[in-house]
Structure formats: C-alpha cells, structure tokens
C-alpha cells in the first residue's frame, strides 16, 4: 500500500530498517502464537521512535509484505498525503507512536475523514519509569491489561491508567516500582505496545519483548493510536 510517491519513498527508506528487524530469529514462533496479520498495516513513527523497539514489536506479528512504515511530521506535505490515504477508500489499519504535535494532527484528520479510532494512548518515558494514559474501546478490550502485564514483567517502574468511557465496566489503574536494575529494560514498553497495537486480538503470553540491548531507551512523551479506515 502506497500513500503517495513521496511517502512511498519514505516507506522504502524505513522499510530497510524494518526488514532488518524482521530477520530476527524466533519471529515465526511469535507469529504463530499471535496469529499472523494478513491485512495492510501502516505504522507511523516520529523522532526516536523510528529507532526504538516499537517497530520491533510490530514486526513480530505483521509480515513484511503487509507493513509500511512512515515518518510523520506536522508539515503540510504530510497532512496532504495522510488525508489522501484516509480518504482513499482502501481499508487500512494505521498504528503509530508519535510526538504530541503529530498526534494532534493525525487524530484530528482521522476524525474529519470519518475513520474509527479504537485506541488512543499517551505515554511518558524516562529512565527506568514510564506512564501510560489510555483510552480503549470494545475492539481493544484487554489490550491495556496486557500492556500492564508486560510492563510488570519487564521490571521497570510504571503507572498505567485506562479509561473506558463507553464501557459498562469502570476504568482501572496499575502501578509498580522498578525492580532492582530494571532501568535498562525500560524500552520494552514500546515493543509490547507495538505488538499489541499490531495484533490486538493476539495472545501475548507466549511472547516477551526483547531486551533493549545497547540501544538508548525511548525517552520523552509520545502518543499511540490505532486508526481504521
């Protein structure tokens, strides 16, 4: 799926990176557990997210031929291309983890186009701790809890609150202090988030987000979303 030539070029540029990620051993196992996604997924990223474990999490469940990755910004060019995609009439699942400015535009454009938004999350991460404020719907039911479990398993400190304004059940909150020496794993939330957004119905228990390794952990404020056209 190509948004425009411009974004296609961007997709190619990032596609190489995504391709490297998808060469990881064990991917097939994870996909089998998760249920392979066979519809196009466009992943939007900005800034350091491009080099984070977020894309790694997505790649665990979306085959390369169905995944396109695009950088966002808040320029007029991106807005034109994204609007064109939203209004193309092609059913597409768009997931992303981007900066606040890009997210403000993306979600507004999605609404204006009539797209559905089953997930909206705000995230703040610093060394050894992350905060997550989530809005979920019926189709992403349980995703926040799964993210919470992953955060807990990773050992980094976190707080998570989920609002389900249109659910009969009440919202919930989770929090944990960091385990000793867990700061190095604080990027795992991004991998888990990528996995969950790419495959909201998938079984996550068989998969553990990979260790960050030498990559600097993702720090700062981000917004995640799932958009369906």
């Amino acid at each position, binding site marked *: 799926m190509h948004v425009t030539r411009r974004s296609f070029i961007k997709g190619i540029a990032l596609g190489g990176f995504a391709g490297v990620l998808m060469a990881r051993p064990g991917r097939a196992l994870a996909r089998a557990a998760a249920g392979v996604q066979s519809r196009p997924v466009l992943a939007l990223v900005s800034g350091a997210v491009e080099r984070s474990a977020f894309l790694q999490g997505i790649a665990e469940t979306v085959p390369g031929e169905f995944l396109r990755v695009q950088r966002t910004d808040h320029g007029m060019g991106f807005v034109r291309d994204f609007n064109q995609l939203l209004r193309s009439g092609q059913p597409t699942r768009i997931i992303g983890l981007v900066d606040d400015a890009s997210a403000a535009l993306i979600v507004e454009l999605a609404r204006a186009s009539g797209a559905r938004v089953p997930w*909206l999350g705000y995230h703040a991460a610093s060394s050894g701790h992350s905060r997550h404020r989530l809005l979920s719907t019926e189709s992403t039911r349980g995703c926040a809890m799964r993210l919470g479990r992953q955060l807990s398993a990773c050992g980094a400190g976190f707080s998570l609150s989920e609002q389900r304004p249109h659910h009969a059940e009440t919202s919930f909150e989770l929090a944990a202090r960091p385990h000793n020496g867990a700061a190095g794993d604080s990027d795992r939330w991004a991998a888990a988030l990528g996995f969950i957004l790419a495959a909201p119905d998938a079984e996550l228990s068989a998969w553990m987000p990979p260790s960050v390794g030498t990559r600097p952990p993702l720090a700062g404020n981000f917004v995640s979303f799932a958009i369906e056209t």
Partner: protein
Amino acid sequence: MTEQNYAILPPGVESQAFHNAVQQFRQLLGNENVLVKQEQLVPYMKIMMSVDEAGHAASAVLTATNVEQVQGVVRICNEHKIPVWTVSTGHNFGYGTAAPHHRGQIILDLKKMNKIIEIDPDLCTALVEPGVTYQQLADHIKEKGYKLWVDPPAPSAIVGPVGNTLDRGIGYTPYAEHFMFQCGMEVVLANGKVLRTGMGGVRDSNTWQVFKWGYGPYLDGIFTQSNFGIVTKMGLWLMPQPDVFRPFAVKFRKDEDIKDLVEMFRPLSINGIIPNGVVFAGTLYEASVTVRRSDYTTEKGATSKDVIQRIRDEHNIGAWTAYGALYGTHEQVEVNWRIVIDSIKKLGKGEIITEDHAGNDPAFKYRADLMRGNMTLTEFGLYNWRGGGGSMWFAPLSQAKGSETVKQVELATRILNKHGLDYVGEFILTQRALHHVIDVLFDRTDTEEMSRAHDCFAELLGEFEKNGYGVYRVNTAFMDRVANSFGPVQREVNKTLKRALDPNNILAPGKSGIDLDI
C-alpha cells in the same frame, strides 16, 4: 455494547427514549451519519484540557449534509429533550477540541456541510458552509484564479472560517479580527425556523454579503460564542491580494522591552501603517518552532531563567520578537517601511529582520506565512515543548499599552511558575487592544501535573479578574467560571435570550456558561 445498550446517555434521557431518537436520526440522516460505536466516538474525545475525557464523552455523533437535516435534528432533539453540541470542523485544540461541554450531549458535526456557495471576486466576498476549511477556500480561490487572500488562524489548513469566526478567533493579516470581516449568517433556530441575518431577510437581496447591519437590531453577534442557534451559512470578506507584501521582524533582547515595543507599535497599528495583526512573541512561544524543553532539561516544574537565557543565546531568539507586515502598492509600502524604520531607530533598540535577512529561518517563514494567509501548521510545535498533550489557552485582553503588558506578563509568569509551568505566550495587536494568548502546556500522563495545571488555570482566571482583566475565549471546562467574570446581569440577559430562543435548552447547553439548568 450493542446499539440498544448505550453506555452513555444524554442527561435526563432514558435508554429507550434515546434509542427511539437514534432510530429517528438514522431515518433522517442515514446510518452512516449516526455514530454510536465506541471507536467512532473516541476520535471526538482527544481533549487537551486538565480534566478526564469521561466528563466530555458524547453519547452519539451526527453528521448532517444540508439545512433541512439540521432542522430535522433540532426537531428530534426537541422531541426527546436531547442536548446537541454543534461543531463546524471541531479543531480548536486548546479551546476544547470537538468534545461536548458535558458528558452525554450528542455532537452535531457539520464537517460534511462544506460547500463554498459563492465567491464574488469583485466585491471580495464569500458565502460558505460550516465545514469549509481555509485550505479548501484557498484552493478554490487559486483554482479560479482570483486575486484574493484568506486569513487563517494558526491551525490554518484544517480549520474553517465559520467555526473560527463564531468563536471570535483571530488571524494575522489585515483581516485578523474575523468577526469584523463577517457579513451575514443563516441560522437554524431551536424552533426549526431558518433566520437570515442582516440583508439576508430581504427577498432576492444581493447585498447580504456586503452590508453587515441590515435593519433593526444587529443580531449576528448573539450567534457567536453562544448557543442560540446553529449557523449553517456565513458570509465573510476576503482580502484583495496586494501588489507588495513585506513581512518583517524586530527582535528585542530584554523582557522589559515589551513595554517600549507596544508603545512604538500601537500608533503604527491605529494609524494603519502596519495594518495586520502584529504579534509580539515571547521567547518560549518563538522557541517552540524548533526547540523542545527536553533538549535543555528534564526537571519537573517551571523552566528556569537560566535555561530560557540559554535558549535565547543558542537559538538567537529575542525576549520578544515582533512580527508585522506591510501591504499595498510598491509606493505605499516604501513610504510605510520608512516610517517603521524611523520609529524603530527612534526607539534606539530592536534588531530589524527582513525577509532577505531571515533566509531559511523557520520561525520567520512561519510568521510570514501566517501574515500572508498561507497554510502552515508550524504552531503545532507548541505541543512538543513540554509534551503530554495538555494545552489550554489562557487569553486575557489587554489595552494596547506597554505598562499593561508588563503587568500581565509578570502576573501570568508568577502564577504559572508557582504551579511549575511555563509562560509560553504572545500578544496580537489589533489597533487598541492586545489579545494576550498564553498556552498553558502540561503533561496529561502525569496526574499530579494535570491537577496543578487545573489549579493554575483557575488561579490565572481569578487573579486576572481581580486586576480587572477578562478573557475573550476559553475551553469548555472553564466556560461557566468565565461567564461569572462578566457579571450577573450579562448572565441573566443571556439566560433570558436562551429561554426565549431555546426553551427546551437543547442547543449546546453550557456553551459560554449559558445553560437553563444552572
């Protein structure tokens, strides 16, 4: 949730009655224009205020495509006493976004009423529907080859003239005061009747978009920042493209320079030498184009003076940067440019930056685009300054006097810093008044910070009120509070009008504090 099991209901409406109403809406508008599924409602919940989303969750969203459908929606809402919150494009971000005033209200989204009905290139007028965006209008003008400019506010391309004018927003060209350049409205009243204001009431009138006042009481004003009707068409004036457009900036290095620069620019504005909405941007507002707070510090709380000075030094940003532009024929612009230059020289401070000097400076380009009526989304950079998605515009009015601006900046900075937040503000000069717009930015993932931001905003309102200052616009969470600032008599008059025009209180209860139930 099945569609018969609504998790959120309009206040005071039973589930069965709401279901019946939804069925009627479907019959009127078609299934695709009646949204009740969760994932269809979530995009209307990306609020930026210091309150939970749940308090502003809609029970349903309707989209109408013509006036008759709007009349039908009003009829059904009256029948079931369902409150309806109307948005044009709904992109007003730090003023509340598209979310309704309170939980359970249905949203009437007019984005599909997006026809440009008429543009007269000779009279420089337009008649448009609420869903028309500035981008759409600019594209249409370009396609037709008309020599006309539009005047968008900062979110430019994605917002529209009807919504922004009805909220009394401002832009940056000589047509910056949008309501001043509005002419004629079509309004669906709560009783279903269609009112055309001004000359629009005269059969076969061709002066609806050229003469604002009509005959008898001037009514257009009561349909701005109000809930007395649903505006379905609006006339506006467009600026003829000038032969010459010359943007410029003047950088001032010290905080206290705001006093002198306002004194210098006021007469230039009142005399029409600089005809546009002149901006005086504070350091952090200006910096947000290229800088994030986290580039300098990750400490919680207000950004220190030392850090702000480092940002100024490293990015060559003034304590205040004035942006203005000259418009007209070559001769007019040359004469006026000399007057501006002389005024600055006489002041003895301020670094003048022309378009040539600025080169590729993104901050200059952004401001020049706004003053030219070009589409730009650079201002969204503000949301990355602190991050976390919290943004509430605190927008007091000020006399265009230097002493007043100093007082307001010091007061606002003290309160914001006390609550661990930054002064990210600018002034927009429109002859005699200054719109002082301060973006109260905060992190919504941090409940403690969100709580501080809420308290901060309330204190800003309270302290400014004590000093005789009122705001010209506010987000939905604080509308009732602000209505109090304007006194009990204004509130009572508004309520009297509401009672007369909308006795069932169905149109946007709570808008600007007008609600028959409180």
